[in-house]
């Protein structure tokens, strides 16, 4: 077949589909007297035709408190019982089994129910700030930020393994193919930055076992996906033009590229082509903006030291958190996150996958908390001092918590770790319009279940969107015949979290 014939067929097919939903919709809307077309509904294709930049700023549903989010994803699940939620009773019951009826219907990732016993925490606890918030001795720096922190001790997940749990935390449902929080925010609000992506992902150490599904745009066009920076060496490569290709000719070539891609887009109506055009234009602008972003020489020594940019390695560096100088990349990522907030990046996902302590909990937790405690506290104080904390939501948390039971895998002499625990765990937030100096929710005497104010993941998401001026019920996207939300079919805004 003549290739041009093939193209004509493709065009005919596309005309039929796009005219059904395009021309037909336009006709219907004008009949209904609604010129904008379906009120709050935001259709990708119409949006592209109306606006040359699909990431252009969009108004929220109501006045927002937060403009940017730094999501410090502590993948692997840190132990709330050794960091945030002290349980003296658990120490008393150390070595004792749980009543059989309590564990009867529970699924564990690894624990053998028959011989499982409770495991106390050797941590020392003290109260901090005017609010008197509990922190264990592993978090001395973070403890000094207590009055800015909203400590949520009653988080609940439905998933007891890492990747499904991380999907639930990131997408609102433990399923592939859904947009992540950062994608929903950039979809709803656009990007504040002309020269950098609206949604950036930074990783330390092992990277992320959940991979790209944790920053995917799902069924949203791919320009709403997170952009992964490198964690070793230069964060962004290929920022300079190749030898023999000067800036003016680069721009000239890109003009042709854009024009040819636009022509293709007008024929195919595929939003992914619009994404491609936006990516190339952003890439060109990043060539001048990104080197400035990642150059830390303008930061004062005081700032660099506060974050611990050049800290020497911990003398007892150990465990799964100690990979590829994670202590340096995590500190740098925290500082880069602040610099991105200053430059208008909407959502920065800082991933440290280090916390899956099925064994050697004390040793590994000592190291991991050393990695994060200083930079995270520095980040909060730095944001506050620059007046950015009010509009920047900082989230620190993971897909679930860890069990009050010690982990007793076959062949182990002693319990030195904890298993996955989705029924009750701790996550904290600061800034961005949350009411700090507050402990929300309560767990029972051994930290097994929630006894007051349980927070399902959908409520967490509904409240997060609310802080950004978005109504989680209205921020929708039609896909496969129905409207989808970050909060799936649940979600209530937790008003007591709001400042």
């Amino acid at each position, binding site marked *: 077949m003549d290739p041009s014939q093939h193209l004509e067929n493709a065009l005919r097919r596309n005309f039929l589909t796009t005219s059904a939903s395009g021309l037909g919709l336009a006709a219907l809307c004008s009949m209904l007297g609604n010129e904008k077309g379906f009120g709050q509904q935001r259709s990708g294709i119409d949006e592209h035709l109306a606006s040359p930049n699909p990431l252009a700023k969009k108004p929220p549903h109501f006045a927002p408190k937060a403009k940017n989010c730094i999501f410090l994803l502590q993948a692997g699940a840190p132990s709330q019982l050794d960091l945030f939620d002290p349980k003296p009773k658990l120490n008393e019951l150390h070595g004792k089994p749980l009543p059989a009826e309590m564990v009867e219907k529970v699924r564990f990732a690894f624990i053998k129910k028959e011989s499982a016993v409770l495991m106390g925490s050797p941590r020392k606890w003290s109260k901090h700030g005017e609010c008197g918030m509990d922190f264990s001795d592993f978090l001395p720096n973070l403890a000094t930020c207590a009055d800015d922190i909203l400590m949520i001790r009653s988080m609940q997940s439905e998933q007891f393994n890492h990747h499904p749990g991380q999907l639930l935390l990131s997408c609102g449902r433990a399923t592939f193919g859904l947009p992540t929080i950062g994608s929903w925010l950039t979809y709803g609000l656009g990007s504040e930055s002309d020269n950098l*992506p609206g949604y950036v992902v930074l990783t330390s150490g092992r990277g992320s076992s959940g991979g790209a599904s944790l920053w995917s745009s799902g069924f949203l066009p791919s320009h709403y996906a997170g952009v992964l920076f490198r964690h070793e060496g230069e964060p962004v490569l290929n920022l300079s033009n190749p030898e023999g290709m000067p800036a003016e000719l680069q721009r000239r070539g890109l003009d042709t590229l854009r024009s040819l891609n636009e022509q293709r887009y007008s024929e195919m109506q595929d939003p992914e082509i619009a994404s491609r055009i936006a990516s190339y234009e952003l890439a060109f602008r990043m060539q001048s903006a990104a080197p400035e972003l990642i150059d830390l020489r303008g930061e004062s020594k005081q700032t660099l030291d506060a974050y611990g940019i050049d800290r020497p390695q911990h003398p007892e560096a150990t465990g799964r958190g100690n990979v590829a100088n994670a202590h340096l990349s995590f500190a740098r990522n925290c500082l880069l996150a602040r610099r991105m907030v200053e430059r208008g990046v909407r959502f920065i996902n800082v991933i440290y996958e280090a916390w899956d302590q099925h064994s050697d909990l004390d040793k590994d937790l000592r190291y991991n908390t050393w990695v994060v405690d200083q930079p995270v506290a520095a980040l909060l104080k730095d944001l506050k001092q620059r007046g950015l904390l009010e509009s920047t939501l900082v989230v620190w948390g993971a897909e679930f918590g860890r069990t009050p039971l010690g982990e007793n895998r076959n062949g182990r002499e002693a319990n030195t770790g904890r298993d996955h625990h989705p029924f009750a765990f701790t996550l904290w937030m600061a800034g961005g319009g949350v009411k700090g100096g507050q402990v929300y929710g309560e767990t029972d005497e051994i930290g097994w279940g929630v006894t007051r104010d349980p927070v399902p993941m959908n409520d967490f998401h509904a409240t997060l969107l609310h802080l950004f001026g978005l109504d989680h019920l209205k921020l929708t996207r039609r896909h496969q015949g129905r409207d989808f939300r970050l909060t799936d079919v649940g979600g209530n805004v937790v008003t007591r979290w709001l400042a």
Partner: protein
Amino acid sequence: MEGLRWRGPLPKRDVHLFQANLASPKSDHLRLSRRQFACVDRNRSNTPLQALITLNNESFSEAACAFAKRLIENSDGRSDPEKIKEAFRIALARSPLASEWEQANALLMDSRQWYREHPEEAKKWTSRFPLANLPVEEYAAWVALARIIINLDEFITRE
């Protein structure tokens, strides 16, 4: 891959290891499958970092240079318009529309003009695969066009 011919049944494990060892920053940004397990559907992605790779990475500059060299060496004295059509045919398996052809030709002419004024740059730009029998600014202009063609959405993505 010419040199890599196996005799007998394909040693699957070694092929996987070989592919795994090819991992590079490019494979991260382009979201290549890690080949640890079957990949039913590749993740769709479309980021500015990918655009930076296909625009500025050395291997893509080499590819553009090799593409232009192939066009010129196989042209048998064909005219510019015919060579542009041939470039579209090789890259996209179709002829350019009239408007596409015009855009490509305009870029070719502007690039030719620029490299004529900057012969040193033209030399650097074409040094990846030098070509003896052609003025260097002429060759450089074709490399500039070839580079844009291999950055077209239609070339990068199979719809």
